[in-house]
């Protein structure tokens, strides 16, 4: 397969600069409202602060992939005298917690770096963090060209995720026999 250049968008998070104001959550929820900016609700944000001022814990976490099952991770990290649950660092929209789910439907949320047309200069959480705890960085990396899945494959993949390949194949086979 051919090597291609891929743009990697990242946010550098400098926790020491975070003042805990949650503007990132607010503007994220506004950007993703429909119509855009028509409502605010940090609960819908794809970035959330793990915030415990008296323990000096200020940790912005971005929403990542949905996961169907919770993992075993319940470890405790002690960093610079501060105690974090392992889950604090996790981006997953996971059954073990309410984080990164639409409050009414429960559907998973995922950060899309504020994809927009025309594209924004930077994600809005970064723009609104004028204390520079969040810094947007773009770099290019060479990666193997990915095989693009078509729509049907994507749909089937999610069924495979949920039920397993064997069950899916059996079901399709049974359905096709019924004609």
């Amino acid at each position: 397969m051919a090597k291609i250049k891929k743009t990697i968008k990242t946010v550098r998070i400098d926790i020491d600069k975070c003042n805990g104001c949650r503007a990132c959550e607010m503007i994220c929820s506004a950007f993703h409202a429909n119509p855009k900016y028509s409502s605010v609700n940090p609960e819908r944000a794809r970035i959330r602060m793990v915030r415990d001022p008296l323990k000096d814990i200020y940790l912005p976490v971005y929403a990542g992939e949905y996961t169907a099952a919770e993992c075993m991770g319940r470890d405790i990290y002690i960093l610079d005298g501060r105690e974090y649950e392992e889950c604090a660092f996790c981006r997953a929209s996971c059954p073990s917690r309410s984080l990164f789910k639409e409050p009414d439907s429960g559907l998973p949320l995922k950060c899309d770096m504020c994809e927009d047309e025309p594209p924004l200069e930077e994600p809005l959480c970064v723009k609104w963090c004028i204390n520079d705890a969040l810094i947007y960085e773009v770099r290019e990396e060479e990666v193997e060209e990915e095989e693009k899945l078509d729509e049907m494959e994507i749909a089937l993949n999610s069924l495979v995720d949920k039920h397993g390949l064997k069950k899916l194949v059996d079901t399709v086979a049974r359905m096709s026999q019924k004609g």
Partner: protein
Amino acid sequence: MRYAETGYNLEVDLSTGNIERVETDPRWTELYLGGLGTNAKIMWDRVPPETEPFSPDNLLIFSSGLLGATPAPGANRTIITTISPQTRYMAYSMMGGFFAPELKHAGYDKVIIRGKSPKLVYLWINNDKVEIRDASHLAGKGAVETQELIKQELKDPRVHVAAIGLAGENRVFFASIEQGRSSASRLGLGAVMGDKNLKAVAVRGTKDLNIARPVEVIQFCDEVLQYIQWRQANPIPGVMPILAVLGSPQEMAVTDEKWHTENFVWGNARVRRKGFWTEEIEQKWKETQESVRTRLISCYNCPLKCGAIISVPGISRYMMKCFSKLTYTMAAFSDLDFGFRIAQRATEYGVDGFSCPQVMAFAVELKEAGILSDKDFEGCPSDNEGRFFWLLDRIVRREGIGDVLADGTYWAARKIGNGAEEFAHNTIRKHEQAPLKLGMLNPIYYLMYSTNEKSNITQIEGQFPQAPYPTREEREEFVKDWIQVPNERIKEYFLKWEPRGEFSMPFYPGIKECCEIVDWMERMHYIDDSLGICAGLSSFPLKPPYHIHNYPVLISAATGIDIDEEELVKISKRNRQLVRANNVRRGLRREDDTPPADHWKKRFPEYEKQLLDAYFEYKGWNMDGVPTKKTLRELDLAYVAEDFEQRGIYKDGED
């Protein structure tokens, strides 16, 4: 659909346990905006002047502002309103933090609390589910500790809690309500909360708040953020560092305290210590501050860092902002390390950082003068710092002399008698003021001190520079980008204002000029307090991002209610009169509009009378300080005029 506001209040009766979600009248938003404005209207309608502060009929209102929780930076204030046990007038202290936005996301603009619970409880507002919960296990717990315990109990770190400490539970007249890094401290709101047996209000909300014209609001906010960045990078020249940038005075960031320690007064607001700030002290205090300051922190959706997490070795962490850093230190003639240590205990007890240190220093003076006896101080340690800790413990428990002192200097002095009144010298409307004693009368401050019912000078100061600039060139430079002024005249007054000579204090700015300046500065506070936007980004600092010309754009776009500048001015006047009216009905008159006699050394009684006469007229009040019928009618407040008439507040034949 309602925009920017939720359109619902939560009505809680603690006597019966009844809880209701009540839709509000959208017309009220047009007339009074929200926050302080609608609080004042509710107090007017529902708390008649006969109501005692510690009566079940007194209301305690926790309100967001009209713009609270919208994308507007700094729109996070909670405006708490009740009748103050100390002044016996309508009190409205405010706090920043995270409470008001959370309340709005829970679906309410205000929580209106009435009645009195038979036992200690806390209120748990979780979207539509609202519970009155037992708080007997929280009795006597610290205000900070209580917030943590409730969050643990509710198993949700995203809950925000406003709580009282022991001082509130024991109805100390200067008890505060604490919440995260913020507190509503002035005028004893915490005592009313304690009287209602309400230990805390916890809130969690996950609902949307709608914006009427979203793109306009976001563009506006973008400009505000850009301006804040520019303004912080370009401090105003010619003023002290804490006033050169935006925000509440930057006491947590700045360690140079030469100005405060040498110009504010020590002890019981008396002793000025010129030459105090030596290099040695500077070094020591800087070390103290930097060693305990863990992080500078903000309120909801605000980039400014006016607060700090304070970690003093050996005692539990707490959060601090602004001037309480120095009030205890200076009241006790001690050092900054003591200040941070006692402030921790005071924050857990939940007391006001201006009144409490002054009350303690007052007690120490009375002891030294022989008015309080050894018996009153029985068991008190002999060292200076120990004595202050001891007094604090007695006051919040209302034990012995502490029970008398817990009512504040004014009431305590009257109880103690024997000449103690002379020592309660720093109050306005019976409420302790900032410890500041100056030389020459400042007519602008004279009017603000006299007439402002927020009763705390640090929160009514405004955007007109505190002192003239020495040269014409500097003044011209200053006015070049001074777009926040309501009109060009204000710039002229500043350009003409000299440190010495014909155009200097006390006679310049002149009477008319002072009226205009003070009226403008006060107006901006009234607008902020109704919108729930922090004064630190608007009415308080020089050249702020929000001002009278751009506020109408933001309010209209966020709410969908088209309000122009003229209308906004009218609303602010209406709210001003309504706050005044609440207090006039409770007996407030001209005599109450008096700064401490020793605030300035050089006083001009005749000139001060002319100033106050002119300002009353400018505000549309009669010479007693009562809003005239004409003023009230013009502002759609005919119902207030009628009430005044029925109560015989007007003299015969008055219009």
